[in-house]
């Protein structure tokens, strides 16, 4: 795969090194000429100085045949602009942009660019590890905004219905395992002691789910 990475900071370097090690053809661009010198010795890719929002720089970096473009600079505006240029002018099939400021994410998603939120991902992960240890996720989605968690039904919830645990927009029961069989429960399904439930839950509602399940602070 031919990959073009904009931004040769810690993340850019680590990602470029990884792609190169897996046999992909990598080009890294950065406004700072000196940034290229910090790439590891024996790096199998290419470095080019220049601003990744400038079409001429992208052309020189070979964007015309790139299969993926990743914008990883510390500047959110530059990442968004470069990602749109890569998509609209150069028709790069796969594009990702890093976004540091989480308050900008909802609006920028209107622009149709997939973003990776380093701040949001770190905050969600730290909260999960320090605060919600009892609910280890099986899967996280997006930047950790929603998670799939599984938990045993505590005895005191036996006899309640699935509907009692559903909170629109926050917590949804998506699966029930009972006596080794898995099924998708209905709202009216009564819970039994020993059932294991799968929940889809918003990161901000993990505390609420934990209190439903009577989990203790770790």
């Amino acid at each position, binding site marked *: 795969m031919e990959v073009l990475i904009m931004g040769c900071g810690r993340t850019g370097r680590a990602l470029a090194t990884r792609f190169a090690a897996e046999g992909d053809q990598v080009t890294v661009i950065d406004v700072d000429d000196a940034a290229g010198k910090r790439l590891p010795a024996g790096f199998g890719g290419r470095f080019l100085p220049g601003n990744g929002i*400038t*079409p001429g720089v992208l052309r020189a970096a070979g964007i015309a045949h790139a299969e993926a473009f990743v914008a990883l600079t510390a500047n959110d505006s530059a990442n968004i*602009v*470069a990602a*749109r240029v890569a998509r609209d002018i150069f028709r790069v099939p796969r594009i990702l942009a890093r976004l540091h400021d989480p*308050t*900008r994410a909802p*609006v920028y998603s209107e*622009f149709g660019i997939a973003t990776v939120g380093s701040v949001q991902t770190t905050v969600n992960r730290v909260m999960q590890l320090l605060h919600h240890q009892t609910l280890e996720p099986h899967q996280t989605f997006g930047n950790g905004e929603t998670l799939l968690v599984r938990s045993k039904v505590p005895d005191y919830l036996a006899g309640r219905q699935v509907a009692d645990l559903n909170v629109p927009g926050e917590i949804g029961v998506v699966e029930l395992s009972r006596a080794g069989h898995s099924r998708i429960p209905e709202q009216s399904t009564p819970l039994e002691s020993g059932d294991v439930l799968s929940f889809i839950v918003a990161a901000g509602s993990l505390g609420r789910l934990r209190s439903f399940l009577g989990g203790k602070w770790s």
Partner: protein
Amino acid sequence: MRIIVIGGAGLAEQVAGALQRAGEEVTVVDIEPGREAALAKAGLRAVPGDAVVPSTLEAAGALRADVLVACTRYDEDNLVISLLAKKHFNVPRVIASVNDPSNEELFDESFGIDAVVSPTTALVSLIRQAT
């Protein structure tokens, strides 16, 4: 007309001042703190903050503005601000200035821009016409 001008001391403030003297209702968004007093003295409403953040543009009145002028020193910010103004706030007329002429081809309707000003290109073409 209600006009929002984005940028700092220099181009943005001078444009804002000239429009205000011409009788327009002008708001300036400046990322540098502490400019409010100087702007108020010139009869301009000042909103401090980073205009790439949607809430700043909203505070500046982007939902009711007739014209928005993005003339910060950074092309990527001018492009993002223009895009926000057009796509998110539906500002009828968006004008942006280009700092680096090699970025000029980006300043078009795909970033929500109705009119573009490039001081470098304008100067060069004036010089060429004169010689």
